[in-house]
């Protein structure tokens, strides 16, 4: 464990932060620009994972396991969420026969 942490610490923390922020932003931009629900879901997953990575990196740098524990929680919750999300998606496909996010817009104003 010790070695693993020090291996991570070889790369400066800034690089992790920049990488994760970039990943996060890619996910964000994906959410903004794509209209296919599945892709958006994947982008959100990407954002989750960037957070996971960031937490791990911080955890290693702080030599504090709490961050990594959090990562596990995130992964579990994300999985649960995706499960629910996909079933909602199925329901949507059944109702409108499409996965375009903007198709569902009857509720407005």
């Amino acid at each position, binding site marked *: 464990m010790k070695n693993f942490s020090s291996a991570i610490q070889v790369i400066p923390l800034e690089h992790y932060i920049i990488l994760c922020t970039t990943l996060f932003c890619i996910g964000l931009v994906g959410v903004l620009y794509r209209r296919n629900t599945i892709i958006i879901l994947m982008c959100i997953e990407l954002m989750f994972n960037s*957070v996971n990575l960031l937490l791990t990196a911080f955890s290693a740098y702080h030599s504090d396991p709490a961050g990594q524990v959090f990562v596990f929680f995130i992964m579990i919750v994300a999985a649960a969420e995706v499960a629910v999300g996909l079933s909602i998606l199925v329901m949507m496909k059944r109702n409108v026969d499409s996965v375009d996010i903007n198709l569902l817009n*009857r509720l407005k104003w």
Partner: protein
Amino acid sequence: MSALIFTIVLGIILLYLGFVKNKAILAPVAIAGLMITLFLLFKDWGLGSKYFHDMIVFDNFSIAFNISMVIITILIFFFGIDYYEALEFHVAEHYALMIFALTGAFLMTSFSNLIMLFLGIEILSIPLYVLAGGKKYSYRSNEASFKYFMLGSFATTIFLFGVALVYGASATFYLPEIKIFISQFNGHLPPMMLVGLLFILIGVAFKVAVAPFHFWSPDVYEGAPTLVTAFMSTVVKTAGFAAFFRLLNMGLLPLPVPLEKALWVMTGLTLLIGNLAALKQTNFKRLLAYSSIAHSGFIMLAMLSQHNTSASVILYYTFVYSLATVPIFIIFILMKRAADGSEELSIFRGLYKQKPWIAVFLTILLMSMAGIPPTSGFMAKYQVFVLSISQGYLGISIVAILMAVIGIYYYFFVMREVFTEREQSYPIQVSKINAALIVVCGVAVVMLGIFVWNLPI
């Protein structure tokens, strides 16, 4: 803690009861279980017990909020007896999911660690995504659940990113430690910490529908089954604000100036958007959604006017707001049924002529929502204003007062419909339970206005 565990078990029991195919026993069991939960919560009062390495602290604050939420849930379940009778689908899941959401809410009121907050939010949210889509073949319900889910998980990522940044800066998830960390900087926080905290706040603000992160709430409230809407606008909102307050109180006070200003901006926006958008609504559920946003604004006002009574005021506000909201939804359902599913404001026409007593109680409830004495809604708003004015936030208080006027306008707009006669009348059926519920809530709303309490939490 025992209450938390018992509630989870209760949820599972209810799930299994679904196999029995007897809808009639579900609500009684759920209500009885919640009564026990209530009892267990009362037992913990004053103990301040801590669990899981202090990640959960069941102090008086959390117990008070939990009790308030359980009471409201019980009310909603009573409401559900009549509501689900008319529906064909799997009712057990609904009860169970609401109970699960309630456990999430418990966590949100009692965390002292960001992990627990995250878990609480998610445990609360995921059942709600499902519940919002509860009417499987309803297009609107589907849309509501879809929007809620997409925006909700997006907000979660924001929240998590914020948590990560805060963790990176402060190396801890514990709120008290974060507080100590912040206090080292004398108000000049490193940008990473600042942004991280902002993201966390935005994540929570999303849950309580604070502008500009409120977009989901009108659509979801409108599309979701009415019972779920009632649940969301009461219990979920209470939980969200409890979490919000706890976050600020335990971790962030005194608030760093930029964040405080950002929150003031959000408060102002919430007050403005919530009230203004409600003005011209013709769909009643949507109107209540906007009004709920507006109420968020008032609660934010109380929260930001940091004072040692703020917690009590928020508790009082959310509780009396919920107490009025639930029976309003019940009456709405009754009218909607009578009007063949329409949700327009005009369905209330002729209510006074047909059921004068229901009309009177609806009036009292709406008056409470609008903040007119002697109802508790007035007392709640009064306390909020006392807080904000005595803390010297005069400008925003004036804005809030003007917005309260607008609020009165749209509530009284509804009330006017109630007292307007209708050309062709239709039968309005009120079951005994519902009638009793309406009366109890109506009386309670007035009584709470007369006997105002201030809990030392």
